[in-house]
């Protein structure tokens, strides 16, 4: 059984009817189906407005689709009882693009990371602090950062804290919605590297939502392309992206070809991507 199954999900936002009879509702997701296996990362690529974030929200259980089902570990997340839902929420975490708006500006790093722990695990104060320090160190920060407030961190550091908070409960799946998109190239690749390590350490799965093909490529095992609410392509292996004949995929490929030299420097950091093979395919 797949960890996450999305089955024929359709969603439209019904904007208010301006005139009688004229339905202005907007179809944002159209009959989407895919699955994520345990321990893998699905990269979801798409241009702005394609419906990526909306799909992420559907999977997180905060945007109920009009049609279709989302099954997490076999449970329908929109029709599960409260206890199951609470368990699902524990195993399904999220990291967003804007690291600042994802945290309460009046909480220290320690309190931000301790929140899920307090919520789900009853640890003693010393145990909890130990866990938090471990987590901070795991994401490349240190004990010194415990008492700092969000405004005292850089965007990249704060994103590390968001990641620490997300992995604190050892979840099964993390939805990463443009999680590295606002960071500079070097920080981006460092965070991607961290995500990759964490994935192996904790046996995590990711849904990596992005408009950045390079980033998706560096982290994903499987790839999907979303365009105007439709999942136009779904690849078991990311290499298939380069052999696809789909006109939209071609256009996406062309867009990274244009910045090819930069692409090459980015990948030097990450030895788990075969740069040579990549450039040959490009």
């Amino acid at each position, binding site marked *: 059984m797949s960890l996450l199954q999305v089955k024929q999900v359709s969603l439209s936002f019904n904007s208010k009817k301006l005139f009688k009879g004229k339905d202005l509702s907007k179809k944002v997701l159209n009959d989407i189906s895919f699955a994520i296996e345990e321990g893998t990362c699905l990269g979801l690529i798409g241009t702005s407005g394609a419906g990526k974030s909306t799909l992420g929200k559907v999977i997180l259980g*905060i945007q109920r689709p009009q049609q279709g089902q989302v099954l997490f570990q076999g449970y329908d997340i929109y029709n599960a009882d409260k206890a199951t839902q609470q368990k699902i929420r524990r195993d399904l975490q999220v990291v967003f693009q804007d690291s600042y708006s994802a945290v309460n500006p009046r909480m220290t790093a320690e309190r931000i990371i301790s929140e*899920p722990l307090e919520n789900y695990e009853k640890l003693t104060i010393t145990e909890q602090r130990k866990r938090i320090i471990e987590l901070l160190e795991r994401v490349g920060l240190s004990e010194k950062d415990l008492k700092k407030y969000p405004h005292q961190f850089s965007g990249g550091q704060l994103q590390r804290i968001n990641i620490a908070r997300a992995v604190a409960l050892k979840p099964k799946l993390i939805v990463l919605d443009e999680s590295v998109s606002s960071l500079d190239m070097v920080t981006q690749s460092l965070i991607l590297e961290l995500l990759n390590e964490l994935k192996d350490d904790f046996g995590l799965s990711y849904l990596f939502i992005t408009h950045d093909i390079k980033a998706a490529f560096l982290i994903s095992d499987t790839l999907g392309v979303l365009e105007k609410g439709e999942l136009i392509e779904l690849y078991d292996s990311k290499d298939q992206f380069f052999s696809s004949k789909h006109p939209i995929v071609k256009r996406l490929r062309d867009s990274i070809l244009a910045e090819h030299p930069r692409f090459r420097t980015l990948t030097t950091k990450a030895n788990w991507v075969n740069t040579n093979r990549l450039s040959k395919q490009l």
Partner: protein
Amino acid sequence: MGTYVLKRIMTIIPIFLIATLLTFGMINLSPVDPAEAYFTAAHIQATDEMLEQKRHEFGLDQPLLIQYVNALIKICQFDFGISYVTNKPVWEEITSRMPATIQLTIGSLLIAILVSIPIGFLAGMKKNTGIDHFSRFLSFIGASIPSFWLGYLFIFFFSVKLDLFPVEGTGTWKHLILPSLTLAFPLIALYTRLLRASVLENLQESYVLFARTRGIHEKVIMGKHVLRIAISPMITGLGMNLGNLMTGAIIVEAVFSWPGFGRYFIDAIFNRDVPVIQGYVLLAAGLFLISNLIVDLIQMYIDPRISRKGRQYQ
């Protein structure tokens, strides 16, 4: 943070100096001749020589700058002069009436907080429900009824018709209820609105929305993320109103014959009792400054970003 606090306290000094200058200037600009006022208050038909002598006594024949500096030195020693009417030091008169006014102020603040926090919070959380409509009605009433009329309405209903509370005077807690409520009413209106708006705003914050998806318990979300932050504009409002309350008490004190310094001040206006008026205005300015200072310090404690913002401008 320590330097921020210190700097914030230092800003009070120039502002207070400006307040003294304004008070002094306005009193000098007003057509009231203190010497004349003095004799009128004492019911003495003064001759020109007597007036002349009194003006000399008050130092009114000296240049304005010297007069101002002298006044300033006295103010720093809490010497606001002697009341024309009672012939007692103004400072003494004010401090002896202070407890009653403070009692009234604290009473109404408490009522305002106790009523507006639950109503504003619930109204924000349950938008467009019964409680929200009720809060809107309450704010509308509170903002539009003048306090003297509200005071008389309360007296009419609760004292005369229902005989629940005494009409006027002091002594027991029962005496305190109606005047405090009257004074609190506009505040309830204001704070309920403020809190409702900021609760609604905070509910839209991403970290609140996504705390839910992370499975954080609703109680924690509401308490830690929403209420704690939503309450901070209210504290600002509170500080700005604390000074207002003390001075706004004047009318309510008159309606309920409350023996605070508000009524004393009204009497002073009618008697053209210049030292009292001056003392009162300065006291009010001081109260405003201090209550704003306290609020700023509380805000800084609640929101750690503020002290940093403050530093950026220096």
